[in-house]
């Protein structure tokens, strides 16, 4: 200790101290964030991982490569986490039917147990977002009004203010959120499937995510305040309706006005 205190006025002491501080905070952060991401993955058993690997080799490895290392046809899945697999397989987007602008939703190909096993296998390859549990999806006390504001800031530009979906570039699109389960919405936010950006827990906290899901559930339940929403697509469908039906009625009235009575 004496040797240390003697050197405390050394010109390099400040730098050494700074380095120690940085290493310490960095180390703590790495441990903390790993602990964060690894949570809930303990539910998978070794058997799950083994069965999952078999399913993966048979169904996914053609594009994602052996060991999920990625090929020209598909990205590496190391570190995408169980949530990504549960979303992509659980909504029927994977396995991909054919290459295209984006993977389309289709009837689910695997049972829940098989999806769980593949998730376990991919999660075992590297730490990533876990499948949200009961706790994350508990909407008790969630604030739909706050969720609505977050939705309009972060999601509405692609998914439409009424969550009806919208077009992106070159054949891609943001899908409608109607009928999507709470779990899949949550997973999409944490994993950023396909061209959707990632909204990690540091950006939108788990409580904020619950608020957003509560908001989506409410607007889906109560429907449109104005009656028929014509798909909530804005001026395209509304304009088409008024130009065809509205002008049609006006033309019919004009014909009737100028015709002679029998």
């Amino acid at each position, binding site marked *: 200790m004496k040797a240390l205190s003697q050197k405390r006025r050394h010109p390099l002491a400040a730098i050494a101290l700074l380095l120690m501080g940085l290493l310490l905070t960095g180390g703590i952060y790495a441990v903390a964030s790993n602990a964060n991401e690894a949570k809930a993955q303990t539910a998978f058993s070794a058997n799950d991982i083994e069965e999952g690997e078999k399913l993966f080799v048979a169904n996914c490895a053609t594009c994602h490569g052996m060991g999920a290392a990625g090929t020209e046809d598909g990205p590496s899945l190391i570190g995408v986490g169980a949530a990504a697999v549960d979303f992509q397989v659980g909504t029927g987007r994977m396995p991909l039917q054919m290459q295209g602008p984006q993977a389309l939703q289709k009837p689910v190909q695997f049972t829940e147990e098989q999806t769980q096993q593949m998730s376990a296998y991919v999660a075992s390859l590297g730490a990533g977002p876990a499948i949200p549990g009961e706790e994350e999806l508990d909407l008790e006390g969630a604030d739909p009004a706050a969720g609505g504001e977050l939705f309009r800031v972060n999601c509405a530009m*692609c998914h439409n203010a009424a969550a009806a979906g919208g077009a*992106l570039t070159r054949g891609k699109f943001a899908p409608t959120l109607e009928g999507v389960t709470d779990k899949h919405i949550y997973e999409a936010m944490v994993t950023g499937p396909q*061209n959707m*950006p*990632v909204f*990690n827990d540091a950006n939108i906290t788990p409580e904020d995510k619950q608020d957003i899901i509560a908001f989506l559930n409410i607007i889906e339940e109560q429907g449109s305040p104005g*009656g028929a929403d014509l798909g909530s697509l804005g001026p395209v469908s509304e304009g088409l309706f008024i130009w065809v039906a509205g002008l049609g009625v006006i033309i019919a009235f004009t014909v009737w006005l100028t015709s002679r*009575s029998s």
Partner: protein
Amino acid sequence: MADHSHGSPDDAVTVAKPGQGGVQKFQDPGLPPHRPRLADVDPRAEKRAERQVGVLFLISIFGTLLFFFGYFFIPLDQTIGTLRLQNLLLGLGTAFAMLGIGVGIVHWAKTLMPDHEIAEDRHEIRPEADRADAEKIVGDILEESGIKRRPLIRNTLLGAGILAIFPAIAIFRDLGPLPGDVLRQTMWDDGVRLTRDPSGTPIKASDVTIGSAFHVIPEGLNEAEHKLEEKAKAVVLLMRLNPESLNPSPGREDWGYDGIVAYSKICTHVGCPVALYEQQTHHLLCPCHQSTFDLTQECKVIFGPAARPLPQLPISVDEEGYLVATSDFQEPVGPSYWERG
């Protein structure tokens, strides 16, 4: 080649000749024969038409009552269902009330009101006398005002008339202050933290994982005096991608931080928020007119009507690890305007 024959060039027969096709003098065909309506000849049809008009007016009365029923007797209990029912009744009630009266009156006029054709003849055209009269009036004015004989009056009137326009220019210019440098500056400055929209909480560089997109406002925006005006200029989209994907031009290498870049969210076309970020293609799409910006080429326009790339906000991290701006935008954000140059 003067005549436009439809035959072959060898065919000597001409189809059109000068003078052919001249309009014959138009003969007035007169009025068509009067045709009595059903209600004019059949008393039962007349009675029926009368009842129809009455029913149409009753529909109007029913519509007005429906409106008031919806307005006063639908209790709004804070649910969408009752609101939707009230909207429906108000709309249908007004439509029936107006259409019932309108359709009823027209039906009445068409079936029951007197039906006789009237022709109103165009009055005679007298061109020469009218023209001479007008000429004489103008001449009289010039003569009697003496404007030709009195150059002092003429010149002072001209001067007064020309000068009198200038106050109008001054007044219309006062309709709004010129933008000055308001559109060149935003709330961003050296050391201003990037915070989340709408909560205003600061963002750590480590929070922004690869593939993330953060919607960002400057620190202190929520407390700003003209919050919306400031927000409309200062909103920023923060994204992180693989540092190798970015190709910064010379002088802009240090505007990002380890693959984290911040770009203005205001489209350079007409100012819509460009916030549709595709994390795989690194394209930013504007929803209004499909302008597409390539994040890997400093938001160069690769499709659509926008004329300039999105302005980049130079960012860095402060000693606590939070993202901060290192200066304001280096160019005005948003669409072109007169003084932008």
